[in-house]
């Protein structure tokens, strides 16, 4: 036995070295390319099969050559975030990598894995790594704030999105408000039941409750249904997991036949739908017996379920515009020395069948779950035109 285990261990160690050697970060700077002008709008693409239109809202790579210093070395930026193994974060990381490639920048990714202690350690390590700028999407903004101050004191500008770090050190903060998302969903549900003329009884699949995002979404929903005929019963912490959400619905609905709506804090509506199917309460949108299933976070599964007519509606922040704005602010501030908006709250509309399908057919990828469904490679995505909020930096501005 011993004879086999030692070679196995040696093999494992060799594998570590190979993996470490293959690790993509810090990346080699890409060859700088000449900046290009935005393309002219073209006709929308019908059907939208893995194709993106240049509808005027998107720019071909405006960043070419932007992140290269006069001495030919690349700028180096770091991105620290909550948790990689989640569609929203994975999408945000994909956009980050794509934009960094487009600009020719060197970059690193830092995953806190839902751990505040790991998060502050990573930010502390970045003081030593000395990137030219840091983008933070913290597990807990309050907890990360002292380290953001430390980075700023070390001369490293910090940008922030999605979860706010309550410190003046942050150069720019861009988000869609979680309370407002919950509130928008609550109001939509209240209007739905008012139109239908029946009282709404909502079962809530909470989570991840250890992040205060969930509590903001809960409080927002409560505010949204206030004064209406809708009542809500808080359910368990489903931890963003479909399976736990499904189990919660399977447990709750047979015991409470009056429930006619499920509200999921995160993109786990797939679990709610499966739960409803299990307890024979799944009816398509438009059926008189339809149990509303609404959620926050329009990931690919949610968009699919809305397209198929099972899930009713979703409200969402979108990692693409949020990361887009953050990176543009970073480039403007660090490379071009320009001032940037201190705080921008982006809209978070309620999407239902008409919007999700229309977006799909027009090829407009503003709902990130649609892009994931189309499996468009990040490298093929253009840069958003967010000029209502922030100027798009180009190498010509240097």
């Amino acid at each position, binding site marked *: 036995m011993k004879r086999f285990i030692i070679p196995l261990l040696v093999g494992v160690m060799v594998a570590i070295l190979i993996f470490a050697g293959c690790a993509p970060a810090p990346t080699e700077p890409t060859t700088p390319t000449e900046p290009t002008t935005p393309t002219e709008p073209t006709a929308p693409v019908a059907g939208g099969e893995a194709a993106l239109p240049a509808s005027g809202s998107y720019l071909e790579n405006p960043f070419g050559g932007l992140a290269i210093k006069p001495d030919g070395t690349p700028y180096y930026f770091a991105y620290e975030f909550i948790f990689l193994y989640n569609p929203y974060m994975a999408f945000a990381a994909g956009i980050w990598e794509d934009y960094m490639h487009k600009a020719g920048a060197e970059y690193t990714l830092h995953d806190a894995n839902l751990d505040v*202690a790991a998060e502050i*350690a990573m930010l502390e390590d970045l003081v*030593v*790594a000395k990137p030219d700028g840091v983008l933070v999407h913290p*597990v807990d903004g*309050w*907890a990360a704030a*002292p380290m953001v101050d430390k980075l700023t004191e070390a001369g490293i500008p910090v940008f922030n999105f999605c979860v706010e770090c309550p410190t003046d050190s942050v150069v720019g903060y861009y988000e869609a408000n979680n309370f407002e998302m919950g509130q928008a969903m609550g109001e939509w549900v209240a209007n739905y039941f008012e139109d239908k003329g029946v009282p709404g009884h909502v079962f809530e699949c909470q989570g991840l409750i*250890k992040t*205060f995002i969930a509590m903001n979404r809960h409080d927002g929903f409560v505010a949204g249904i206030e004064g209406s005929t809708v009542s809500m019963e808080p359910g368990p912490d489903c931890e963003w997991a479909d399976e736990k959400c499904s189990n919660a619905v399977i447990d709750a609905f047979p015991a409470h036949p009056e429930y006619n709506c499920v509200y999921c804090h995160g993109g786990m509506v797939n679990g709610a739908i499966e739960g409803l199917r299990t307890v024979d309460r799944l009816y398509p949108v438009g059926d008189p017996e339809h149990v509303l299933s609404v959620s926050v976070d329009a990931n690919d599964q949610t968009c699919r379920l809305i397209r198929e007519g099972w899930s009713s509606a979703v409200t969402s922040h979108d990692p693409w515009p949020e990361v887009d704005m953050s990176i543009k602010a970073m480039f403007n501030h660090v490379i071009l020395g320009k001032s940037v908006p201190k705080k921008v709250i982006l809209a978070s509309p309620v999407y239902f069948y008409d919007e999700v399908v229309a977006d799909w057919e027009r090829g407009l990828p503003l709902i990130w779950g649609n892009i994931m469904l189309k499996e468009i490679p990040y490298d093929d995505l253009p840069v958003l035109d967010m000029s209502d909020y922030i100027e798009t930096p180009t190498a010509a501005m240097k």
Partner: protein
Amino acid sequence: MAENVGPPSTSGRAQKIVKRLLGHENAVLVIILIALIAVLSGLTKGKSVTGTNVMNVLLQASGRGVASVGQAFVILTGGIDLSVGGIALMAMILAASMMTGTTAFPAGPIAVMLLVGASIGSFTGTAVSRIGMPALIVTLAVWKIMEGASFLVCHGYTIAELPPSVSFIGSGRVGGVPVPVIIFIVVLVVAYFILYHTTFGRSVYAVGGNPVSAWLSGVKTKNILFGVYVICGFMAALAGLILLGRMACASMAAGVGLELDSIAAVVIGGVSLMGGRGTIIGVLIGVMIMGVVNNGMNIIGIHPAFQSIVKGLIIFAAVAIDYLRRR
């Protein structure tokens, strides 16, 4: 030909010293640590060995280190404590809720949080030592209880606006040395004294090595088992205090993974999961190895997925080595 019977040559003496050093498990760990530091120094172009970074590593290691010392006591008896993160979380949330809005040094809340840690440890210890329940399940249950109880106190929201003196515990310095590092050193010294210079410490090893023999030799095994869980609970709360000071707030996302980190550090430090074998110096080295590897990978910018793989493989290797040594 006449046999050489004179004093050993210099090279022979050196060989003996090297052999003796390599025979000592902590020396091997030290060599691994030094090699890691050297390799990472090269890969980070010297950034990892600057004074600032060394201080960062020590700061980051302190909270985990304190929890690992507590975990080591439990593992030395052949047990395991998965409630460390939950206890740290509960202690933090409870203390922070008592401190918020005040300005005075929060001696009372700190005393309460440490007492709460020890009390929860005594609950676990009672279940394991008196009732004979499996430690794995009991501590898993306690972890979940603590998580839920913490939520009831803070309702998922971060508790901030703590007195400035709390930040001093996490980031203040005494004589240039960060306070968490001082706390960690004191904990190590006390743990070293307890394990090697008290009857209780020797009994911990005896219970871990062979509980039946220890009992037959007159060791009060139930009291020893009870004691190690109380120590572990206390240390978890102390680790929570360091974390509270570092963040200047208490968050539901704090303490996540502390149990696994502490177990990993203890095992990497050469403490046997079967109990009865290991040293406090080994735990210190294990904590430092984890700290140095995490820090180095962050500075180099290794992709998070590869970081996870590397950490997993290190733990796998440590457990495999322990298993092989046992055979």
